[in-house]
Each structure stands twice: as C-alpha cells, then as structure tokens.
C-alpha cells in the first residue's frame, strides 16, 4: 500500500512547499540529484534542469505549464549509460508513460531513477505561454489560478488561449510514480497531496523527512473522474471529426499536403528512439531516373516525395506504443494534426492487442512479442 500524507502550504504558495520537499530529498541524501523544470530567467518558459545543490532548488517549478521536451528522452540519456547514483525526476503523467515504454525497449534503466509524478492540468505551447507572460500574465499567478481550478477539476486556460490539443484530449492526467504529488481535489493554497510508494515512504519517514497521516480528500476521486470524463469526451469528438476528414489515402494526403518532410515529429517523439532511422538512410535517397519514372507513370509527382510512406511506416513502427504526449504536434512547423492522426489510429491498433502504452512496465509491447494462437490467416482475420 502506498502511503498518504500532505505537504502544508504557507503563504498560499504551493510551489514553495513542493520545492521544500524536493530540497529535503537532496539534503537528506535520498537522491544525488533531481531533474526538475526550472523557470527561465526571462520568466516566459521552463527548461528541464538537473539540480545537485539543494540551495539551487529555488525557482523550480514542479508544475511547469509547458513541455518543451519529452523528459522520457531526457531520462533515457540520463540513465542508459552508467547512472550509478540515485536521481529523482519530476515528471508529467505522459512523461512517465513514455519512460515506461522506453524501459520496455531497454532505452531507460529504472534502477537508479526515482520517478516523481505531478497531477497534470495540461500544458501550453511554448510560444503561447511566452506570449501570455509577455502580455502581463505573471507565471506564478497563472499557475496559481490553474491550481485553484484543479481543486474542483476545472482547468481553464486564460482568455484567448487553449491548452495543447493533445492535453485537452489526454485521459491520463494522473501519473503512476514512486512519489505522486497530488493536486486535483486539494485546496492548493493550503495543502497538496503526497502519495509515496511503501518502501520509499518508510525510508523518508526514518530520515525524518515527513510523517504520514490522513487520507486524500473525499472529493478527489470525483474530481479526477470528472476531468478524465471531460477529456475522454473531447478525445472521442476529436477522433470523430478527424475520421470524417481523413476518409481515405487521398484525403489524408490532402490534409497533410503541407507536410515538408522535416521529420521534426520523429525527432520530438519519445518513442522513436532508433539511432539511425530508416528515413534518414540511403533507402530514401532515390536516383534521378527513379523520380523521372514516377513522374512518367503518374504524369507528375509532388516533391519532395515519400510523405505517405513516412507517416504510415513511422506509425507501423511505433503506434502501438504511442502515449499521446502530442510533442509531434508541437514540433510540426506546418501545424499538422500529427498527434490526432497517431492517437486515432493508435487507439484501434492498441485495442487489437489489448495494450495500453505506459500502463505497466512488466507488459511486453505488441511489436516485441506474439501469441501462437492469434490472427488466424486461414480465416482471413488479417
């Protein structure tokens, strides 16, 4: 059983209370360093930072409102080669789900990682957040308003802005972590919830970091249920709309006609971990004659080529593990709905194998396993 407690908030500043808790993890040497988002000096954004000195913990924002990189990737870089000391990472739910998937593909080593998950109200596009701050909406005040809304499960973006599309349809706002910082259902000006895995909880108690008492507020389940239901509804509506637009390959190509083949979606994707992607190899360096043959057969071809195969094959390689973080959307210079495409197709493919990416690190991804007794080709089931 995970242990429950709360962090008392003073002066109505929950971020301070969380900082204090993280600081104590460093001071009591529970971990050697902590990966946590830090507010940029300009105040209009955040960056993941690896903090070793507890005194540098001021200015850290566990509840950062943007996600410039997927920290599953950062965790991969951090842990894959010789991480011999314990490091904590403060992460959003989708980042933890990304880490779970990467661990299955042996791209993250969980041994020395301590995952700290924070309830997620959603994030803004980096450029939107920066604009908001420049328009005079102070970062801390903005976070405060969102935290206040989280008590009732109502997260409202400031007038004229929206959360990232992927966040609005994310039905996994609650992270599964070693340490879980709970915000939904809590009155953040007074306290935030803390749920800690049992063994670690005992260690923290022995080191005098905190004591465990109390239960989560009775309204929390209802609040979380409300958020999940709203987002699921949004997700289904988005899927339906998208499936209405992309009816066949031609309509897909029409919708994606502004794709410039920059591969940014692939670079931003936490699941696309291949060191050398096939789309960057000589396989897609065609000879001049080849282009002419295509143009001859079709009368003319769009340049650069290979839009369809790029998206479909990237999908066939990783869509079973797509966690829907939406960083592909954010990375797309043509603002194409890449995440919606991957999530709406992924939903069906993941269902085929009864697989939920990021659910459990002990599951095996569908592409890495098989059952003898499935997909009978004789009966035409594939």
């Amino acid at each position, binding site marked *: 059983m995970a242990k429950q407690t709360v962090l008392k908030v003073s002066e109505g500043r929950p971020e301070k209370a969380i900082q204090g808790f993280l600081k104590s993890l460093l001071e009591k040497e529970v971990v050697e360093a902590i990966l946590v988002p830090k507010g940029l000096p300009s105040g209009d954004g955040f960056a993941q930072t690896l903090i070793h000195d507890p005194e540098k913990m001021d200015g850290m924002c566990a509840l950062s409102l943007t996600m410039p990189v997927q920290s599953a990737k950062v965790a991969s870089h951090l842990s894959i080669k010789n991480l011999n000391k314990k490091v904590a990472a403060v992460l959003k739910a989708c980042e933890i789900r990304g880490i779970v998937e990467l661990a299955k593909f042996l791209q993250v080593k969980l041994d020395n990682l301590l995952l700290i998950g924070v309830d997620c109200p959603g994030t803004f596009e980096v450029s939107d957040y920066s604009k908001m701050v420049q328009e005079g909406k102070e970062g801390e005040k903005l976070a405060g308003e969102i935290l206040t809304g989280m008590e009732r499960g109502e997260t409202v973006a400031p007038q004229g802005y929206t959360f990232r599309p992927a966040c609005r349809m994310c039905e996994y706002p609650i992270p599964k972590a070693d340490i879980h910082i709970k915000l939904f259902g809590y009155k953040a000006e007074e306290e935030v919830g803390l749920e800690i895995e049992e063994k670690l909880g005992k260690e923290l108690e022995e080191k005098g970091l905190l004591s465990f008492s109390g239960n989560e507020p009775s309204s929390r389940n209802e609040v979380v249920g409300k958020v999940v239901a709203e987002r699921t509804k949004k997700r289904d509506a988005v899927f339906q709309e998208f499936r209405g637009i992309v009816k066949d*390959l031609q309509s897909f190509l029409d919708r994606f006609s502004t794709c410039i083949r920059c591969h940014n979606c692939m670079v931003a994707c936490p699941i696309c971990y291949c060191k050398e992607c*096939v789309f960057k190899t000589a396989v897609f360096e065609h000879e001049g004659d080849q282009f002419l043959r*295509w143009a001859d*057969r079709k009368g003319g071809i769009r340049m650069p080529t290979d839009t369809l195969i790029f998206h479909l094959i990237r999908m066939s390689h990783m869509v079973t593990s797509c966690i829907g973080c939406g960083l592909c959307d954010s990375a797309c210079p043509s603002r194409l709905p890449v995440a919606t495409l991957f999530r709406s197709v992924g939903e*069906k493919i993941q269902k085929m194998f009864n697989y939920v990416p990021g659910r459990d690190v002990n599951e095996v991804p569908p592409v890495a396993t*098989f059952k003898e007794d499935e*997909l009978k080709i004789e009966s035409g089931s594939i």
Partner: protein
Amino acid sequence: MSEFEPRIVAFLCHWCTYTGADLAGTTRQQYPPSIRVIHLMCSGAVDSIYVLKALIDGADGVLIGGCHPGDCHYQTGNYKARRRLAILKGILNQMGFTEDRVLLKWISASEGKLFADTVTKMTNDLKKMGPNPMKQLWNA
C-alpha cells in the same frame, strides 16, 4: 485495350516458401507470370516498409510467404511477420484503404502445388479488384 495484368511482389522465406516455389517449377506446375520474387531468409525479415513501398511504387499486390506456424527455421520469425502485417493492415484500414492487396500465406517446401494455386488465385482476385489505386497517388 488489353486485359489488366496484375503485378505481385512476393517476399518469400528461404527455408519454406522459396523452396516451395522452386518445387512448383521443377514439378512443372503452371501459374501466371504475375509474380516478382524477392528472396529473404525469413518472413520475419519483412518490415512493413517493404510492403508499403512495393504498393506505393507500383505493385498491385504483395505476397508474403513463410513457414507454417511452428516450423520457422528461426523459431518465431513467421509469428512476428504476422503481427507486423496485422499492424500495417490495421493502419491501412484506419486510413480508409480497405482493399485486401497484401496476402500472408504459410507454404512449406513440399507444397509446390499450393504455391502455384496461391499465385493463381491471388492473380485472379487482383484482376477482379483492378489496378492498385495507391500507385497513382501523385503526392504520395
């Protein structure tokens, strides 16, 4: 206008289906010359990228031939090929491409007749279906 002759790209595993195709030849089985064979060591070596590239680049159908379940020379390559193809077909279906132009078939080294019959049937099916529309997408 002459009758439409489908073109099939076939990925055949070395140990079973390729040898089966060989047997079809040596035992003088007749089948349509619609097939272009690519010889692989295992059906498990067929990535979806080859299948889709063949379809986009002009094939009307793709045949993947592997060993019967349990007979894979590399133990499990055929099962993996089956999952991979199921994923690709699932994706194509979701994208509204529901035509069944990719066939996975277990054909052993001793089934020369089955190989010839498979190619014959697939050719006839594709003739009915007509040319693959994917190869004409100018902006693919």
